[in-house]
């Protein structure tokens, strides 16, 4: 693939992911749990994981968390989202790479959401030195089923369109 075009594409996807992070920050959620989110940027991360591979989507995700830190300026929530981002993408990579015979993108994205929540709650309990925070986990797992389902479902469409664009112009 052409290097410059590749680079531009990654930059575009990163910008999308940042936008979605900012967007989901203004959406109020009915439940009050630390780190509970819709996971909208995960659509971009998951699709780029499928289309571009692990390293590039990991880069997108890490750059995204840094950019959100600069824009919003909340170092504590940066720590949570950083660990959540890294762990969720590792879980999604492993499931997609080795178990994609069994799980569709919906399953992959649910695994990512579960890993994200686990990492965030674990980080919170380490920072606050309080294991009771782990009692949030069951509720958050239930919620992540819904968010994971919709993220996976919509990623299907993004992957389809991305592949269409990439193959049509023979960038690969």
């Amino acid at each position: 693939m052409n290097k410059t075009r590749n680079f531009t594409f990654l930059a575009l996807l990163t910008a999308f992911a940042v936008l979605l992070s900012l967007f989901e920050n203004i959406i109020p959620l009915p439940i009050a749990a630390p780190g509970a989110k819709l996971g909208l940027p995960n659509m971009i991360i998951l699709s780029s994981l499928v289309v571009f591979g692990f390293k590039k989507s990991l880069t997108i995700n890490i750059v995204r968390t840094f950019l959100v830190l600069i824009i919003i300026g909340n170092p504590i929530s940066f720590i949570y989202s950083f660990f959540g981002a890294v762990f969720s993408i590792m879980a999604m990579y492993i499931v997609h790479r080795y178990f994609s015979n069994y799980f569709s993108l919906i399953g992959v994205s649910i695994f990512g959401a579960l890993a994200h929540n686990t990492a965030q709650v674990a980080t919170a309990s380490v920072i606050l030195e309080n294991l009771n925070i782990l009692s949030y986990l069951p509720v958050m797992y239930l919620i992540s089923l819904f968010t994971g389902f919709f993220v996976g479902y919509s990623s299907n469409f993004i992957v389809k369109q991305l592949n269409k664009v990439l193959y049509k112009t023979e960038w690969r």
Partner: protein
Amino acid sequence: MTKYDKILIILVVLVSLFGMYLVRERASNYNKKYVEIIIDGTEHSKYILDNTIDKEIEVVTDKGYNIIHIKNGQVLVEESDCNNQLCVRKGVIEEPGEIIVCLPHKVVVQITGSSEDLDSISY
């Protein structure tokens, strides 16, 4: 969606329901309840929680304030100047194991219990 996706979803539902049950179960074995206010990992104060106590505590840290209200055997964060207001929106808690977290201020309000049963009774 494949067969395994559905199995995964059902499994997660079962595990989380079981987890909620465990959290609740652990809470119901106590006959004495306490409210602990923890700031940045160290205990700030501790109060007995029962239906008769009506108390308002203002916790001030260098990051901001939280007003915690204990009333009718329930605890809530009434007011806070934190940016996400999750602690206020969490509402009331009343069972041991329940917890309110204000991440921006590193303030944790949790209910703990102890089962101080009598060792022996002599007549």
